[in-house]
């Protein structure tokens, strides 16, 4: 038996012995376990599964063992992931910091910083949030102005970050801050990490048009952090931020594997709310709904094409570039159609007269507006396609 086959056998029997049966079922979104200083478990199986994976070093399976990781090779990592999928194991915790910040720390942080942060991260003891966007730096992120001014051995941070997911529940933040000049604006940015419990940090959750959300605004009022919390070189943070955003895309696709938003099936709604179209207007509506289904299937084929293309080492950059744009716009388009199909039943806000599914639909429709903005708005996506994929020239 080859080494990798032997490894597969070991992994399989370990998972079978250690993953509780209830952790091998589909995970409702309210049963996700989030790592951090205080971890909340809903039941004993969650705690067991969390602790066993932690102790095995498999929160971070491919990190070096010296930092608390599992020390697995890329090949072994994919075996572990495949076996977990096969047994339908839930992720023992959700920890975006491990997936996004982790690789950047491994590559750019000093040895002292690695020793400070990686082992507790690998034990699931730090929940991270991301401080990138600001009220006046959205699509034009590099114009950010939250400042970090050197003062002896410290930086003094002033300003505000917005759209910080789970800012109110996180232990630490990694943030892009201005430490240098505004011209050129990318050249004065640094990456720092800070404890959310530091004096001067306040967090305000943001209500969206869809209601409560995980987004927060974070304010910094003379927040002092030691200079040892600068990651990488001073004023060289822009490149690290871009690397983080690369990992963000991967983290988000990993996250969406577990935390699928409620899927609203257009066909099911069509049959329920327009079972027998008669008038020309109803027939036109039906045709628009079918066109929406067809666009969805085209997109799902393109997703499969990405996977197959990557496996065959083909260039799939064009498909990847359109993915976020197409998906977020298709979803919004679908909700708009569902609104037309269901009339006021899709516009319920609360209370009697609406099923939970109908109320969820209202929320998801309103939330779909955020999806075409967050993580690079549709316009930013179109810029990227035009410039990087099509090679259209920059305006001077």
């Amino acid at each position, binding site marked *: 038996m080859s080494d990798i086959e032997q490894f597969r056998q070991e992994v399989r029997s370990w998972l079978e012995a250690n993953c509780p049966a209830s952790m091998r079922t589909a995970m409702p979104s309210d049963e996700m376990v989030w790592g951090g200083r205080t971890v909340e478990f809903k039941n004993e199986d969650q705690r067991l599964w969390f602790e066993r994976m932690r102790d095995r070093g498999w929160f971070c399976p491919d990190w070096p063992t010296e930092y608390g990781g599992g020390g697995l090779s890329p090949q072994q990592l994919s075996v572990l992931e495949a076996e977990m999928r096969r047994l339908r194991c839930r992720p023992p915790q959700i920890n975006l910091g491990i997936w996004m910040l982790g690789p950047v720390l491994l590559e750019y942080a000093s040895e002292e910083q690695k020793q400070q942060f990686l082992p507790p991260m690998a034990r699931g003891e730090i929940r991270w949030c991301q401080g990138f966007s600001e009220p006046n730096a959205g699509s034009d992120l590099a114009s950010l102005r939250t400042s970090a001014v050197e003062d002896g051995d410290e930086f003094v941070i002033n300003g505000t970050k917005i759209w910080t997911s789970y800012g109110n529940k996180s232990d630490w933040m990694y943030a892009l801050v201005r430490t240098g000049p505004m011209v050129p604006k990318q050249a004065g940015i640094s990456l720092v990490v800070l404890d959310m419990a530091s004096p001067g940090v306040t967090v305000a959750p943001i209500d969206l048009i869809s209601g409560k959300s995980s987004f927060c605004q974070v304010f910094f009022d003379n927040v002092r952090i030691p200079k040892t919390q600068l990651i990488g070189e001073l004023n060289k943070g822009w490149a690290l931020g871009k690397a983080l955003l690369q990992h963000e895309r991967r983290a988000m696709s990993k996250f969406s594997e577990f935390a699928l938003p409620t899927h609203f099936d257009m066909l099911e709604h069509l049959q329920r709310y327009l079972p027998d179209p008669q008038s020309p207007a109803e027939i036109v509506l039906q*045709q628009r709904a079918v066109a929406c289904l*067809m666009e969805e*299937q085209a997109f799902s084929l393109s997703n499969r094409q990405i996977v*197959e293309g990557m496996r065959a080492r083909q260039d799939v950059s064009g498909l990847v570039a*359109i993915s976020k744009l197409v998906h977020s716009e298709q979803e919004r388009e679908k909700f708009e159609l569902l609104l037309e199909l269901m009339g006021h039943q899709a516009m319920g806000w609360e209370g009697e007269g609406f099923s939970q599914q109908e109320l969820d639909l209202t929320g998801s429709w309103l939330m779909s507006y955020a999806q075409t903005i967050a993580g690079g708005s549709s316009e930013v996506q179109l810029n990227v396609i*035009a410039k990087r994929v099509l090679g*259209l020239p920059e305006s001077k």
Partner: protein
Amino acid sequence: MSLIYSDEQQQLHDSARDFLAARSPVAVQRRVRDEQIAAGFDPQVWQGMIELGWSAVAFAEDYQGLEFGFGGFAPLFEQLGRHLGASPLLSSVVLCGALMEELASEAQKQELIPKLISGELRLALALEENVRHAPDDIRTTAQLAGDELVLNGHKALVDDALEADAWLVVARLEDGSIGLFQVPANSEGARCSARSLIDSRNHAALVLEDVRLAASAQLGSADITQALELALDRGRACLAAELLGMAETVFGMTVEYLKTRVQFGAPIGTFQALQHRAARLFTDLQLARSTVMGAFEALEQPGLAVPERRRLVSLAKWKCNLAAQRVSNEGIQMHGGIGVTDEYDVGLFLKRIRVAQAALGNSDFHCQRYADNLNK
């Protein structure tokens, strides 16, 4: 089965690209048009395609085919589209070939398929009786008179009918079922007259008045609806690939123009209004390609449920129709004045795109067909 080209498909793709670039540039289509060549294609180019094995690609080795699989047509039609190449590959080989395979007797197949492959026999499918694609609307009749068959009817548009050796005519039998009849082009009572369309290809109307045929002219004995539908689905997938190829060429020309055309002191491709429109067209094309691959994958899976095959093929024709329509309209608009001149090639692509969009079902037809096959 896969949504990406295999190495073999990629080789076919590359060799088709090289052949068409060298032997069948758009200038060849201009010459065919300007010299009013009735066949609508250059016979030497067609001969070259035959020599490269294009007509043999999907047929079984028993009939002197290459047994490459139907998937071979994906890169071929994509490249035909890219170069605006005209040939009877769709009419004679894909459509009539599929019907032969499905319906003809073993002896007929042994005799006729090798001739289809060699080009010695060129067939055209006489189906449409309507202005829009309507495969169920068959009023042409086939009546038994003694040991003969008598055909009467009017076929509104038959692609590649002129100079074909015979037409495969879809007609209704007395019991209401649909049959397929091989009508030699010189049959008494058959009148084939050219219909000159915008794409300058070979189209004709066919009138059948008491055309008498031997009973052996009927291909297959039972109702042919299923075989016809499979053949049409193959044709639709090929048209989708052709539309994709044409749209990609127009898009490529347009992006190039955006980079080089200077107005207001800058390449017009620096203007964000145009950049975003171009990016949206690119998005459509990427999705269109995925649907073409999905359709060919479906057609290579004989075990696939028929409704699923129908959905995937209709999805591809629908998406490629829409993408090619958008790209051709935007392509011309972004070219400005030169885009509407006959000298510039983009107009030739527009004309062929529109005819290919309508052929074997426009977008509404395929949206409806997709709807009819949901939940089956």
